[in-house]
């Protein structure tokens, strides 16, 4: 079943087109990797899907489980947001409000969509925090974001995104700010949870390695357009577009002999 269907999405800020006629679709339970270099429009795409873009003109269609998001009224989109489609941002520190304990911020997400008592919400928060691997969840729920390390903060973000068991998670560079060893932890966590909840993931990253390890399908973006899309194995083994090929060749790999020079675009 197609969960998310983006058709001919175009986003412009004034005269500049950040996203230009982008189309892709995502089946429920699957992982779609959106890769591309900095500034190619990945984040703008994700924000457009979430309806969080300010001051941009948008055209095209974004269908989510039978709802067209771009033209529906704001209230309806807001109800979906957080509940059925959730988002994880790149920089977990600035994405968490420094003035509130993390437990409160997760509970807030939950209570925005489910009528529960504070107490029930607290219990859910603690369960969620334990679930994403935060030790002493009960106590840490009362801590503020700045008291967590980068990896822990990203776990909090994940707990927040998953607490309502959404059907789709949009993860915009969830590991870019993290170290490789922590990145490995977070990717593994996302993987387990995704399988457990059957959630579809739109994984945005510039790291081809991350896509290779996680995604089922890949869309390669360049300058706001999709230059290539396909099933992950096919795309990596036999990239049809020269851009994709060069991009792959530019990555210094640790599993191959050291080349004299790296390929450049």
């Amino acid at each position, binding site marked *: 079943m197609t969960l998310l269907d983006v058709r001919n999405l175009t986003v412009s800020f004034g005269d500049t087109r950040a996203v230009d006629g982008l189309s892709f679709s995502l089946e429920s339970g699957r992982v779609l990797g959106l890769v591309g270099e900095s500034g190619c429009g990945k984040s703008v795409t994700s924000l457009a899907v979430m309806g969080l873009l300010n001051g941009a003109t948008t055209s095209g269609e974004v269908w989510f489980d039978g709802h067209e998001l771009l033209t529906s009224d704001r209230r309806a989109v807001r109800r979906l947001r957080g509940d059925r489609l959730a988002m994880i941002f790149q920089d977990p520190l600035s994405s968490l409000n420094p003035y509130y304990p993390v437990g409160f911020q997760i509970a807030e997400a939950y209570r925005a969509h489910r009528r529960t008592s504070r107490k029930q919400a607290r219990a859910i928060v603690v369960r969620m925090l334990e679930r994403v691997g935060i030790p002493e969840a009960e106590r840490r729920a009362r801590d503020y974001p700045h008291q967590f390390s980068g990896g822990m903060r990203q776990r909090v973000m994940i707990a927040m995104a998953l607490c309502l068991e959404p059907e789709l998670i949009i993860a915009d560079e969830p590991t870019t700010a993290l170290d490789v060893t*922590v990145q*490995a932890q977070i990717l593994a966590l996302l993987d387990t949870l995704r399988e457990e909840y059957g959630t579809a993931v739109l994984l945005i990253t510039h*790291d081809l390695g991350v896509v*290779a*390890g996680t995604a089922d399908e890949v869309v390669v973006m360049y300058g706001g357009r999709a230059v290539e899309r396909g099933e992950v194995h096919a795309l*990596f083994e036999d990239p049809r577009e020269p851009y994709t090929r060069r991009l792959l060749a*530019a*990555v*210094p790999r640790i599993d191959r002999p050291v080349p004299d020079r790296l390929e*450049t675009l």
Partner: protein
Amino acid sequence: MTPLLEAESLVKRFPVRHPLTRRVTGHLTAVDGVSLTVRRGETLGLVGESGCGKSSTARLITRLAEPTGGTIRFDGRDITTMGEAALRPVRRDLQMIFQDPFSSLNPRMTIEAILSAPFRYQGLKPEPGQIAELLRRVGLRPEHAERLPHQFSGGQAQRIGIARALALHPKLVVCDEPVSALDVSVQAQILNLLRDLQEEFELSYVFIAHDLGAVRQVCGRIAVMYLGTIVEIADRDELFARPAHPYTAALLAAVPIPDPRIERARPRVVLSGDLPSPANPPSGCPFRTRCPRAAERCALERPALAEGAPGHRVACHFPLDTSLSREGAP
């Protein structure tokens, strides 16, 4: 021949202050007894995770920061306590390239001014055409000289930073994550450029990165840092083929490989827990809190950086490769 750079037991400690009261509440040891040497013409890589003290080490060996302890010898001279004036001539031979290409260029200066600054600050004058030649050398055009930094892309700006470091033909260039802020395609160009320039100018590099792929591409020898200390140091191929420290192994395993077939087949070594805070390091071996092989001894005794195989030194009580182990596996 003496090594170009010899750093001996470098320590850098910062006071930790309360944000409101400004009272010193403790100390943060960013660099905790780092010793390394750089030979003439070689590239020494320094990898490690964020906050492990790479930049601090770089700042110490370029004397941008005052070491709390240890000595630095550069080109046969002890520069540990040299004053600003005495250091000035040394700086001609000891240059640095920075991580953020824009932040490292003064936004109010033209490229011309930025590139003539090395001469000016050394009391020299660039010869006519020298700036243009520099620009050409790093792949830019002479007419770029009149522009301001913001008129360049990240990759171009980093080239300017490189040109500035090379202006006075230094012997050693410390590169602190020169490619981390760049996209892969641009990163590749810069890595190639650094290699080309090394041959041309007979440079030595200290190349800092958190990306093992990039380090592997340019370095002959690689040191792995963890929590302010060097845990392993070896020739490139040796390190990648036979990592002896469990941390090095975990690091290698965590690097994603852009090939689904290989990547999905690899066993995932997921380290538990986070990097401890350098303000509150664990006792004994700094890695023991995340180490799958940690034993009682690791908490009590700090392993020294000892040579196992020739040129391969590791600081671990229970290294992975038994040939390096002094006492055998647990």
